[in-house]
Each structure stands twice: as C-alpha cells, then as structure tokens.
C-alpha cells in the first residue's frame, strides 16, 4: 500500500519564527486533510511537496518514486513530479481562457493538440464548464473559477492531488455546492489526495483522516471522530473539537437520528451538517428555565480534563461534548453516570446544507 501512496518527511527551517517538521503518509484512494490556522506552515508544506521550495532535510516519495531526498541529493523539479495542485486563490492564468487554463498542463507536457483538446473537453463536460470554455478567469463566478481550478489540477491524471484551501474564497451558498463537487471527485479519485484547510467542517467532510498542524508540527492526527471527540491540545479543541451531526432539516428543525434540534433560522432544508462548539453546551443539574429550546435530559458518559476546562461527554439521546470550566464541573459534581440537563441555544448552531435542493 505504502508504495502506491505518498510518504513524506519534511523539515524546513524558516528564517523567522518556527520551522516545519512534518511526516505524513497517504494511501492511494484516501484523503488526508491537514487542518491548521493561518501561519501554521500549511503553505510551506504545499510548496515543499510540489517542489516549489526546497526542503532542508527529509524525503518525499510518491508512488514508489523518490521525488526528493536530502540525504541522497535527489530533487525532482516541480514540472516532473506529477502532482496536481488546486492552489489557494485558484491562480488561474488571467490571460488564458477557461479551455486554455485547463489544457495548460497537457500542452506543457507535450501532448498533441488534439488529445489535449479532447481530454480538456471531457473535464469541462464533467464539471459543467463547457459553456464557459472561451471565458477569461475574470469573467467567472467564484464557484466557476473553483471548478476550473479543479479541472486544471486533475486533467493531467496526477499521481497526487493537493487541494489548498479549495473552498477558501467562496461565499456560503456556493460553498455547499463546491464542497459536494470536490467530495464527489475525491470519491472517484484513486490516488492519494491532500486537502489543506483552516475550516474544521471542510476537513471533517473531505478528509478520511485529519492531521492538525500547529506551529509547524503535527499536534494530532487520526479520524474525524478521534479528533472531534478527543482533541489532544487546547488548540485542537478550539479548532476542531466541534460537535458535528448529520441530519435532515425542515421547518426550522433538524432531525438527527430521531432527535429534534431547533435551528436559528428556517432558511435551510434537506440534508444538513450541524456543528456547534462544546462551549455552547450548558449543563445543569435541574431542568433549566428560560429560553433554550434545545433542552433534554441525559447522563454523563465520561469527563476529560483539558487545562482549565473539562470536556464532558454525554450519552443518548444525542451523544455530544460539552466544555465547562473545571470549577463548574466540580460545583455541579459532574462524574460519569450522573444525570444532567443539557441546553444549547439555537443561535449557537451552525447549520449548513450538504446539497442544494
């Protein structure tokens, strides 16, 4: 398996601040999401993998071929790496039409005009770009530009696909659509794929595995559930330690496995993803009075301290994580098995459509 995928061990010393020291493995057909805040070293990682900035120490191997090895002095230039990149901000060539942008990689590698045109046509058709073929990037909407960038990255059949903040510049409505396009593509793509993002939802939805990058180091990696339920650092908890549920929305209510969550607005329907931060969950020993409509009784499954706070996992009907201060955990006498009331304000729920109905 390892031979088919990507195996990278990268150390880069940066002139100012911290460096990058990351080891990642991605099997063929699977997607790794690298999640991290601005300045965590995500761009450096992409540049190093693509070969646009040399690594100081380490090794990159893709599909059994060594692309870079500082010990052996191997360096394959970017043009010969066979890595398809959907760059942050798209980076579509502003002077070329949609068609020429997509065909760029094929033409550069010396594929005949006819072959390049027919392969370009296939992708334009598949991503619904045929009508836009002669347009310039400046004449495209954000979602269209994003699909062109995807087509340009994949038309050459790359051995590794890197999506760097693929949904970064899109507005909320376009995002759901675009994310679905990318998720569908990743499902059909049989090479290793890497998604770089600062958005936890994006990482959870697109990555088979997630790796959290903080100040140039991997602070945690694992499946979405591992990270969501058991974040290893303050940072991971803030960034990724979210409650996340899939459900079906209608009339201001999201049905999650038979349990109803009240939404802040009525504007979404159909399949949705609901996320909310553990800090938005309040725990009470008696039934709370007042506004929260999302209130139910449950028991505590387990408690995990994390710095000044504790992450409290509750059991059915909706297993979720609440984050409370250690002090209130003590005063509420929260221990596993204790019955508590959970309440969440509807306004704290982030509800996003998975597909546009």
């Amino acid at each position: 398996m390892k031979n088919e995928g990507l195996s990278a061990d990268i150390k880069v010393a940066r002139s100012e601040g911290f460096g990058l020291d990351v080891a990642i493995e991605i099997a063929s057909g699977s997607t790794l999401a690298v999640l991290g805040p601005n300045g965590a070293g995500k761009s450096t990682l992409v540049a190093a993998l693509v070969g646009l900035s040399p690594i100081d120490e380490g090794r990159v191997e893709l599909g059994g071929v060594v692309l870079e090895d500082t010990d052996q002095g191997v360096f394959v230039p970017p043009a010969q790496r066979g890595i398809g990149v959907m760059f942050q901000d798209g980076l579509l060539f502003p002077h070329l039409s949609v068609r020429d942008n997509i065909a760029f990689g094929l033409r550069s590698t010396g594929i005949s005009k006819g072959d390049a045109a027919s392969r370009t046509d296939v992708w334009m058709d598949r991503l619904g770009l045929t009508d836009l073929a002669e347009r310039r990037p400046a004449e495209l909407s954000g979602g269209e530009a994003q699909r062109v960038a995807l087509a340009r990255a994949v038309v050459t059949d790359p051995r590794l696909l890197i999506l760097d903040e693929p949904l970064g510049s899109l507005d909320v409505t376009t995002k759901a659509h675009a994310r679905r396009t990318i998720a569908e593509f990743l499902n059909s793509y049989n090479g290793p794929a890497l998604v770089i993002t600062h958005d936890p939802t994006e990482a959870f939805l697109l990555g088979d595995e997630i790796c959290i990058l903080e100040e140039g180091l991997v602070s945690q990696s694992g499946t979405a559930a591992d990270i969501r339920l058991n974040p290893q650092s303050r940072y991971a908890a803030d960034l990724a330690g979210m409650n996340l549920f899939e459900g079906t929305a209608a009339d201001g209510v999201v049905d999650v496995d038979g349990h109803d969550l009240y939404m802040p607005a009525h504007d979404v329907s159909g399949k949705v993803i609901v996320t909310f931060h553990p800090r938005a969950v309040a725990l009470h020993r008696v039934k709370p009075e007042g506004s929260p409509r999302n209130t139910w009784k449950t028991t505590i499954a387990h408690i995990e301290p994390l710095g000044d706070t504790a992450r409290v996992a509750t059991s059915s009907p909706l297993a979720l994580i609440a984050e409370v201060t250690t002090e209130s955990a003590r005063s509420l006498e929260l221990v596993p098995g204790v019955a508590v009331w959970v309440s969440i304000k509807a306004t704290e729920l982030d509800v996003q459509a998975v597909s546009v109905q």
Partner: protein
Amino acid sequence: MNRRQRWNRTERPPIVIMALGVVGVMFLALPIIGLLIRTPWSDLGSLLADDVVLDALQISLVASVAATLISFCIGVPIAFLLARTDFRGKSLVRALVLLPIVLPPVVGGAALLFALGRRGVVGGPLYDATGIVLPFSIWGVIVAVTFVAMPFVVITVEAGLRSIDGRYEGAAESLGAGRWTVLRRVTIPLIMPSLASGLALTWARAFGEFGATLTFAGNVQGRTQTMPLAVFVALESNRNAAIAMSLVMVAVSLAVLVLLRDRWWGVS
C-alpha cells in the same frame, strides 16, 4: 462589478486642481497648435517629397525600430537579472542602466566615440579586425539611439516583473511546464502591459534622439541624418521644410502611442 469600485471616489477634484490641470494641458498643446498654425499646408506634399526628408525619415524609422528590437533582446534580459537574481554589484548595474537617462546625450555620444570610435578602446581593434567603422554609418546611429533609449524598457519591465504574482509561475511549473514554457506562456503574457509600454517609450525616445546621434554618428544626409537632425539643419535654411518634418514626427509618434494605448493599456 468590481467590489473595489464601490469605494472609488469619482467626485470632482477641487476647482484649483482642475484649473491647474487645464493650464497643464494648454502648455502641452500650445507648441503643437503653433506648429499646426505655421504649417504651409498647400506646399506640404512637395516639401515632404524632398530627398532630404525621405532619407531622414527612413533612417529614423530603421534606427528606432532596430533600437527597439535590440532593447527587447538585451534590455529585457537586464530587467530579468535585476528583478529575479541576486548578485554583487547589482546596485552598480542599476545605476549603469539609469545613467543614459540622466546623462546629457552629447556626453553619451562622446563616450560612445571614445569606446567605439575608429580609434576607440573597442572600436580600434574592431576596425583592425573587420574594417567596420561604426561612426558615420547607420550602425552608428543604431548604437547611439539604443544606448540612450534602452533604459526605458529595462526599468519598465523590471517594475512589471516585480509586480506580478510569482505564484502563477509556480503553478505553471507544477503543471509540467519547463522554464521556457513558463516564460513564454505565463511570465511574458503577465508582464505584457509593462513590456509594451516599455518598448513604446524606448521606441519613442529612439525616434526623437538627437545629441548622441549627432556626436557619435554625425550628420551626413542619406547616411546618418535622422529626422531630428534634419529638422535642426532645416531650421537654419528652410523653415517650412522644418515645420513639415516636425509635423511628420508628431503624426508618427501620436499614431504609435494611440495604437499601443488601445491595444495594451486597456482603455475600456
């Protein structure tokens, strides 16, 4: 459409600024108007059909176009060196590039004479080896106007190279493009506006060059006499011919600038 445009202030500037602007426009227009008023329109055809004029126009066009081509071939690469590489003495090279703009053209021409003249440091051995003498030939005109005009394309293209987003070139590389392909299909198109205006400025400067040409190449009708030199000579002897030739220079320059403006400086 453009989100930024919403914040563009399109209100009128203060009245004083507008008045001064009008004064500026008049200052620039006045000489041209004076030229047009004094033009002997009825004799224009016969004045311009003169051999002196046709020779000078031909030499000027050949020399200025050649200077533009040479500047493209060796001036644009200087811009790449300055914008994309680091080397010792870079600030010296940049000063060298700017020198012909600051230097009186006569001094430039004299310097060329000392270096490339028949007894010059390089010109002497060149003559001994090949028998070629640059001064007092069309080649001398080309050398003189190139020396004076090339800096314009260098500084414009260098600025263009610095202002483009280098990530486009990285993206092209990752798509399998080699260095030449990146240059041809990405870098050059991206700097095209700077390149075009730089070449236009270079051409215009070469077309109007006077001092260096006179000093280095001389003023031989039919061999090295360019339009500006011919105008200067005619001012002493045949004022109407001088005016007619000036008019031609204005027309040719305006035509080139307007054409380039429509094509490259994207007036929407």
